[in-house]
């Protein structure tokens, strides 16, 4: 078995500067991909946030999912680093599991992307997510915040599968298989944290369609919808409009 198809794809996309960050802060300017071509002429300015534009292909989609997993991992790491005082031992164990799962998801996607990861050359200047909009001092607040993030994650995974590009080399199948392996674990997370906020709310009508011809189907959101929902946590401007929509 050869990985030439993957490598070929990667080279092609690097030449096209598949993802650009026109950066400003010290952190975001470090996000500019190595391999962005000489056509990358944006001038960093110190006062505007960077922009993260996802490319119109599988690597753009994987970078989008990678960002979501980074966000989730960072959220759980923040909670684990400073548990609310009313967290039980079981809560702590669960959140350590959740943190570990999301770190594993994050690193899996980063490995899959390799030098095509949007932050492949960010070094220690990886994105620092902003959770100041979340109240995280009590058990209920923490679980409610987790519920919000997990439901968005599930909706994103539900929407991304069909957007993966069909490629004759079959690599899309490997990506599809990998992403659905993560998707159901995220749905398990979401159901768990929902139940902790409100008993038996694991599949309420706000996350599983209740009526109509699509009744019984889990929530789905497009990348544009998802990036709007998470924008307040992310220190750069997300542009998902280039991603595939069909």
């Amino acid at each position, binding site marked *: 078995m050869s990985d030439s*198809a993957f490598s070929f794809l990667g080279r092609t996309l690097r030449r096209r500067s598949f993802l650009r960050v026109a950066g400003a802060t010290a952190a975001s300017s470090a996000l500019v991909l190595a391999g962005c071509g000489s056509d990358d002429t944006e001038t960093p300015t110190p006062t505007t946030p960077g922009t993260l534009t996802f490319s119109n292909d599988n690597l753009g989609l994987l970078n989008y999912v990678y960002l979501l997993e980074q966000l989730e991992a960072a959220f759980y790491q923040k909670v684990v680093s400073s548990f609310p005082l009313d967290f039980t031992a079981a809560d702590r164990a669960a959140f*350590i599991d959740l943190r570990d799962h999301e770190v594993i998801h994050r690193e899996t996607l980063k490995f899959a992307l390799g030098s095509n990861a949007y932050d492949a050359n960010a070094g220690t200047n990886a994105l620092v997510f902003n959770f100041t909009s979340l109240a995280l001092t009590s058990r209920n607040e923490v679980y409610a915040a987790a519920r919000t993030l997990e439901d968005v994650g599930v909706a994103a995974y539900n929407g991304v599968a069909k957007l993966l590009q069909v490629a004759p080399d079959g690599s899309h199948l490997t990506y599809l298989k990998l992403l659905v392996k993560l998707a159901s674990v995220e749905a398990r*997370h979401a159901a*768990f944290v929902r139940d902790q906020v409100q008993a038996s709310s*694991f599949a309420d009508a706000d996350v599983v369609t209740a009526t109509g011809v*699509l009744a019984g189907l889990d929530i789905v959101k497009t990348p544009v919808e998802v990036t709007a929902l998470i924008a307040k946590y992310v220190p750069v401007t997300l542009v998902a409009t280039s991603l595939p929509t069909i």
Partner: protein
Amino acid sequence: MDFLTFLSRIADLSPATTTPTDDISVRRVALTRLGKVGAALLPAVVTALPTPAEAKLLNTTVLDVIKLALTLEYLESEFYTQALALPNAATFFGSTENRTAIQTIATHENQHVALLQRLLTEAGAVVPAKPNFDFTGSKNGAQPALYPDVFTNLDTFLRVAQLLEDAGVRAYKGQVEFLVSDNYLLEAFVRTHSTEARHASHIRTMRRQRGAVVKSWVSPSDAAITTAGTAPDKAYAGEAAVVQYTPGPRAVPFETTLPINVGDPLLSREALLAKVAEAFDEPLDATTATELALLFIY
């Protein structure tokens, strides 16, 4: 509908762009895709598969996929329907909250049945009748029961529910690759699949609240609910995999280069790999999924 109208409607279809938003989409996709073999892409795919065993499924059609899903949804729907119809249903579930949760799951399974039946009907395919089910696993008394107290002991009921839901997640996951030619069906299946994962998570949470050693996600640390080597155990065989592949294929180097051991204190190798196993649900192939369903069909 006369035949010419029918043809003009077919000609007007663009299934690759459909999304599961309306009834028309269902009809378009169903009409055009059911007979299509998912093999157009597959000669090259074989070289990218991490395990050659999957090659045996290459002739799977969309029709096969829907029929398998319908069998599994009939199974789940009937399981919860029978439980909710028990004469002592008011007390069997232990609490109103538990009963409501089971009702929620039953409603979803019924909705999944309806969706799959409609896909078949609108494609002009024959809708398979609902089989006869015996959830004790005795084949209607023809053999010793696997779960003789499934409808008299809540813990047994929840064990069977967990088995069905976990296996359902895996079965759906194993089929999505055969739907890549059809965005509508692919999205619908992925969304159904995550609904099943929510169910599985909740059933596991219920069991844990009743004292079972089980996480809400599938973990090597779960107390087994099946016996190794038996047919029911196939629902969990391979679920503890710690090797994942990206295209190439390249195995993800969990044990070597990835910074995934972030706990304080650091996890042992065994504990870290258990987390890796938890972080991925694994697919089941159609043959195994069918074998599991047949445990309860006579």
